[in-house]
């Protein structure tokens, strides 16, 4: 064991414990920061011990849910995931999780059966690719999110391309970077045992959403056997209207306008370029049928890969989540699992028994009310959430938050691209909350909620008012942005007698 790594792990564990005891803001990242300070290669050195290697999940929306689904599939395959499940997805969050999982001496216990499942922030992906050398990378989608922090969608797309440029070539073993040598070699030995799966050779297998032109683009120029495309084939899931939150209007190859045979939401759909022949790839893992129910979605997933790297097949399952975005998450997780060569019969049960990820369609029982928390942090994701709420039965009570913290994006202009109008007709009570509650109240006025949408800055008071306004047996929908979700969930977990998030898990 590298002595520097052991020292870093010990420092991280102590810092994490101190932070937890003193309740310094959630605490999950503190351990990672402390450990990284001592050993810059802490992630590399700890992930390198995982016998089953690593898989990364990134993209704008859906990465928390997708990686949690993957983690459940892995658990059902007799593996022990190393998973940053609290959604702390910067390098320090990944480091913190690894420190927590490791012994004081810096060893990952039961290393042979460990698979690192890393949810990774879009901007952190390049660093994770270097540090963790993942066997596969699942890309969910690329939407505009936090323009002030990430820059434009194009900036993220370019950073991804740069991150993958060296990694997708065959010569990674030749790297002159000594720090990479050890973990890469370790993984090579470990993964040699699973030669039949497509994602086991030197470079990572790219698991790409064919329906997102910004994501599918990453597969251009990469050998076909290194790419697994997933997408929705069932055109009945498409929508007529042109949503207002669409981020890719033009072809990434030639700059001409893209046209869509069918749109699912945002810019996800069956796209093709009007001039250069660039078009949506045919998916290897396809959602051939999707049927929305009141509290579940029936999925039929077809596997048809032309090069026989994956035997063809079909899976039917009932996902206990609503919203087409969750169908995408399940599809992405399935594709990720297949990329790793996990057993197919572990996928169905894991998805059918799935409970919602942190702050994503989570439900709490609070004083006889059903409180549903649905994260809405950018126009496309929020529109999906609003669509799901609108489709539910009965009158609606809404507590909507708009925060402008760094993690939310300081610029709140995105609310004008979201369609709050979708839920207005059957809403009988609404409260605008968060640091930018007044901006939200104004947006809601335009959506037809009236001149006097009440405003509340204090999260605790907002929750109390909302619970009071909800009759016993009724449902309250809470729609927070990211930082508001952390606060709301903490308060709800306490009121529901639950555990706080860093203790959450299974």
């Amino acid at each position, binding site marked *: 064991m590298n002595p520097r790594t052991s020292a870093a792990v010990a420092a991280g564990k102590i810092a994490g414990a101190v932070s937890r005891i003193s309740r310094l803001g959630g605490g999950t990242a503190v351990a990672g920061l402390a450990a990284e300070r001592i050993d810059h290669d802490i992630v590399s050195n700890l992930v390198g011990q995982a016998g089953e290697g690593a898989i990364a999940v990134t993209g704008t929306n859906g990465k928390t849910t997708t990686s949690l689904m993957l983690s459940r599939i892995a658990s059902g395959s007799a593996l022990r995931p190393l998973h940053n499940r609290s959604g702390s997805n910067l390098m320090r969050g990944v480091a913190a999780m690894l420190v927590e999982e490791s012994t004081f001496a810096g060893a990952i216990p039961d290393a042979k059966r460990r698979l690192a499942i890393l949810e990774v922030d879009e901007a952190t992906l390049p660093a994770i690719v270097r540090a963790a050398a993942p066997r596969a990378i699942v890309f969910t989608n690329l939407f505009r999110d936090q323009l002030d922090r990430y820059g434009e969608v194009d900036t993220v797309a370019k950073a991804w391309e740069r991150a993958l440029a060296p990694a997708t070539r065959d010569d990674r073993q030749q790297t002159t970077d000594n720090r990479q040598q050890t973990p890469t070699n370790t993984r090579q030995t470990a993964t040699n045992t699973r030669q039949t799966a497509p994602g086991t050779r030197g470079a990572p297998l790219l698991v790409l959403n064919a329906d997102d032109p910004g994501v599918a683009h990453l597969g251009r120029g990469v050998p076909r056997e290194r790419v697994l495309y997933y997408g929705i084939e069932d055109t009945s899931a498409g929508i007529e209207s042109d949503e207002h939150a669409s981020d890719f209007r033009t072809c990434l190859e030639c700059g001409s306008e893209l046209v869509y045979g069918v749109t699912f939401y945002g810019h996800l759909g069956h796209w093709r370029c009007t001039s250069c022949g660039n078009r949506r790839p045919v998916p290897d893992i396809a959602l051939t049928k999707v049927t929305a129910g009141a509290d579940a979605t029936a999925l039929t997933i077809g596997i048809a890969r032309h090069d026989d790297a994956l035997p063809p097949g079909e899976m039917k399952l009932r996902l206990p989540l609503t919203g087409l975005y969750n169908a995408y998450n399940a599809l992405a997780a399935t594709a990720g699992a297949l990329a790793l060569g996990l057993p197919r019969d572990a996928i169905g049960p894991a998805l059918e028994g799935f409970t919602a990820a942190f702050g994503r369609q989570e439900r709490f029982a609070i004083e006889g009310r059903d409180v549903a928390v649905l994260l809405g942090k950018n126009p496309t994701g929020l529109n999906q959430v609003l669509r799901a709420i609108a489709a539910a039965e009965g009158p609606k009570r809404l507590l909507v938050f708009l925060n402008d913290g760094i993690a939310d994006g*300081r610029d709140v*202009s995105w609310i004008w*691209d979201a369609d709050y109008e979708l839920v207005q007709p059957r809403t009988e009570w609404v409260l605008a909350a968060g640091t930018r509650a*007044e*901006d939200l109240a*104004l947006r809601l006025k*335009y959506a037809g909620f009236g001149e006097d949408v009440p405003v509340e800055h204090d999260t605790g008071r907002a929750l109390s008012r909302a619970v009071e306004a909800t009759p016993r047996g009724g449902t309250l929908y809470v729609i927070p942005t990211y930082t508001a979700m952390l606060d709301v969930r903490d308060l709800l977990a306490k009121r529901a007698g639950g555990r706080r998030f860093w203790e959450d898990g299974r």
Partner: protein
Amino acid sequence: MTLTLHVAHLYPRLMNIYGDRGNIMCLRHRCEARGIGFELTELGLRDRLDPLGFDLIFAGGAQDREQAIVVEDLLASKAEALREAVERDVAVLAVCGAYQLFGRFYRDASGRELPGAGVFDLYTEHPGERARRCVGNIVVEWEAPQQIGHGRPGLRTIVGFENHGGRTRLGSGVRPLARVRRGSGNNGEDGTEGAVCRNAIGTYIHGSLLPKNPALADHVIRLALARRHGGVALAPIDDRAELRAHTAALRLR
């Protein structure tokens, strides 16, 4: 006589990045609340712009890749009509990317000069990839408050968000829209924000710009109606939610 505001929205699909839809929603709301008709025409690539066909020409922000496509089309099919429209006192509102594109030229980070539509006598220069972007909440003070003030409190200010790498320098053919109270504005140095030339207004401020700056929105509507209808009095409407959002934004860091 029933009034109708005819608005042309340039490149609504390609230039819609910073909640520009909110500006259109706001104009529509503030017209319809006063019984003024609102007619929107969306002009995309290759569509011709009739210089006198509209009361107001609006354009918003775009990503770099879309902006490059827009520039080419703008110069080929719309710039001349735009300049003529401004000469003939048609109102123009250009936000973010469109504000830069409507200047004389844009010098990018590598020093390359891209011609603009020449509506405003100004140019924009990118100081290099390493330079800090101008990002954050912004509060500016209107240069000509008597035009919009109505004696209502808090409305000498325009509030919103800015996010731009380029620095804009004004020429003698335009005057600044506002003075920066907090934020960067045109270039972070001379204290100016935006530009005004005849009835054309350009600004970096989005957020969206118009909904929580109702006085500015009404000013734009009046400018737009003036060419064909002379001075139009706009009846007061319920702006409580607008003023709450405006006032709250004055305090933002």
